[in-house]
């Protein structure tokens, strides 16, 4: 059953790596804000929309505007 020691070794090294990453995350302030990140990912289309004003058809501009309003 000696292989179990190897597996525990593998698993522990993964766990330790994750622990290091966790400590890094906490220390570097990753988790200081526990709300805004969840909202921020919802807003990545704004620049694209502004650009599309110049070239795309009226229809899409309109729908983009309403979208921006909703946001």
């Amino acid at each position, binding site marked *: *059953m000696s292989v179990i020691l190897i597996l525990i070794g593998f698993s522990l090294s*993964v766990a330790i790596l994750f622990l290091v990453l966790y400590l890094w995350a906490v220390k570097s302030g990753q988790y200081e804000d526990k709300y805004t990140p969840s909202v921020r990912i919802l807003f990545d289309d704004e620049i694209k929309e502004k650009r599309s004003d110049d070239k795309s058809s009226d229809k899409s501009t309109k729908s983009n505007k309403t979208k921006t309003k909703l946001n």
Partner: protein
Amino acid sequence: MNVEKFSYDNQYPKLFALATIFWGVVALLVGVTIAIQLYVPALNLGIPYTTFGRLRPLHTNAAIFAFVGNAIFAGVYYSLQRITKARMFSDVLSKIHFWGWQLIIVAAAVTLVSGITTSKEYAELEWPIDIAIAVVWVVFGINMIGTLMKRREKHIYVAAWFYIATFVTVAVLHIGNSIELPVSFLKSYSVYAGVQDALVQWWYGHNAVAFFLTTPFLGLMYYYLPKAANRPVFSYKLSILHFWTLIFIYIWAGPHHLLYSALPNWAQSLGTVFSIMLWMPSWGGMLNGLLTLRGAWDKVRDDPVLKFFVIGVTAYGMSTFEGPMLSLKNVNALAHFTDWVPAHVHVGTLGWNGFMTFGMLYWMIPKLWRTKLYSKKLATVHFWIGTLGIVAWVIPMWWSGITQALMWKEFTEIGLLKYPNFLETVLQIVPMYIIRSIGGTLYFTGLLILVYNLFKTIKQGSFVPEEEAEAVPFDRTPEPVKYGMIHRYIESKALLFTALVFLAIIVGGLVEIIPTYLVKSNIPTIASVKPYTPLELQGRDIYIREACNSCHSQLVRPFRSEVERYGEYSKAGEYVYDHPFLWGSKRTGPDLHRVGKKYSNMWHYLHMQDPRQMSPGSIMPRYPWLLEWDMDKESIPAKISAMRTLGVPYPEGYEDQAIADLEKQANEIANDLIQNGIDADPNKDIIALIAYLQRLGTDIKNEVAEK
């Protein structure tokens, strides 16, 4: 505050998405085929390449690594750029990753149907492909971590954490389980033997489910579900907690695949305890996903994307409830080796992975092609057909699993097995197999609707390979030095540095340490257990080539019902020369560990020629090619010396004598067959397979005789 202009790469999300759809069709088509083969064995058309044993690994590998794998990459390449506000680290790496992965899939398909397999479930691919997988996987990792390092958004959104965990853990698992000694270009033996090999395999197998089918999809859930619903995740705090608890607990639960096996009891209990602990983070994640839709259920009514996500996340909840339940020893005693296990797995793959992928594709493809989904109505039809398909797949298999297990265990009043003939229990559940294949066909039909719908969507849109974006990079000026230079250096490079060094150590160090370490520990504990003869070894490799272990276990559990049916329960010491182990995980046919000397050589010969000659109604396919194909004798010396390197005590120089020994034993078997009126040729595959089957589990009988 200077705004940086850059562009997102849409090319590789697109390619991966198209590959997902393509391989999805392949995986499901093969799945439906083998589901029907279980009640129409002739559907293999009499050819080896399309026989169940070879198609089953093709199905699982295509579903997991080709369909789900490409879906993961499509999802990651699209979302990671937007989470980090940065383009993927390197287009060249993206290219290598994409084409490398597709090449691996093609190589896998070709080798698996050719019978080139290691026999270890979900790790069947031979060593050259294993190496390619490791390389491409690391390319993916560098590309991902590189993107994270040049991110403009300081906060790493929770989805990306799930992607990181996926990369790191799958790398370690794959390397750990794939340590094998090559015999030739396309043949290798696992360095682990017997119980040890089983433990490593299920440590891998379980965690492949955890870190290939679960964590990446949770990452996708945390990105795509809020995006599709246009509202933030229910609790971001909970998502952080969910992530860290899940990854710390998951990796210890593997032994629950080996309950009541020859694995030491304490290891089995450890697996069970951790499995039960997994309930908590799993359900935390499921609830977090579902509650994101609180107050927005009206959107679910109209939006097929959200419909798919709701059922996907619910299926995740169901299968992560079922998993720990199946890990309880008393439930496992009933469910293990039965159809309940595939039912459990398919709630996960069809429901969770499949539906999350479909939802993601329906959302992402229109975005990539700057258009709207061609038909919401068709997507909704797909949703309902798919859901019905899952139900029609899973319920009959639960039913058949429990039915068959109860039949296996039932005794008459005078203490005899009520159903001593295994076949009787199979015939009882054949109707369930038929319904299951209808469920699978429905699900497949749904996918075809997706193909049409998305094809139309793509046609009406116009693809934009480079999507303009701009963002303000976060302030990277280091904080005032608090801990000194070394610490600051490590911190600044934390992700890439730790991950890569870690991988390097694992590969370099352990590949060297493990084999020598294990060889020493493979001392037999049962004196009468001897290495296989050259002919038996060759027969064992034929058993592996035809993947007999897909349907037959080699592990008699210590229950009265099994000892009555098969014989003495299996001991760890009996497997010390089994590179790889062949315990199997499903008894579509009876266990074979004690089959040795149970039937005559002639019975096996005729049974392989056509199982229905010996067992009318059997659902086993015919193996006529075993009677025709010439046995490979040339490879024997190389195999003997490889086995010796792995610690099997063949005497020095036995290689020279091996072929002569093989021929001698083959002639004995052929003569016996000829005496029974069969026109047998000692040079054919069948002879080696018979030799192996007749040897199985007989060594400990010798010990009893000696006493």
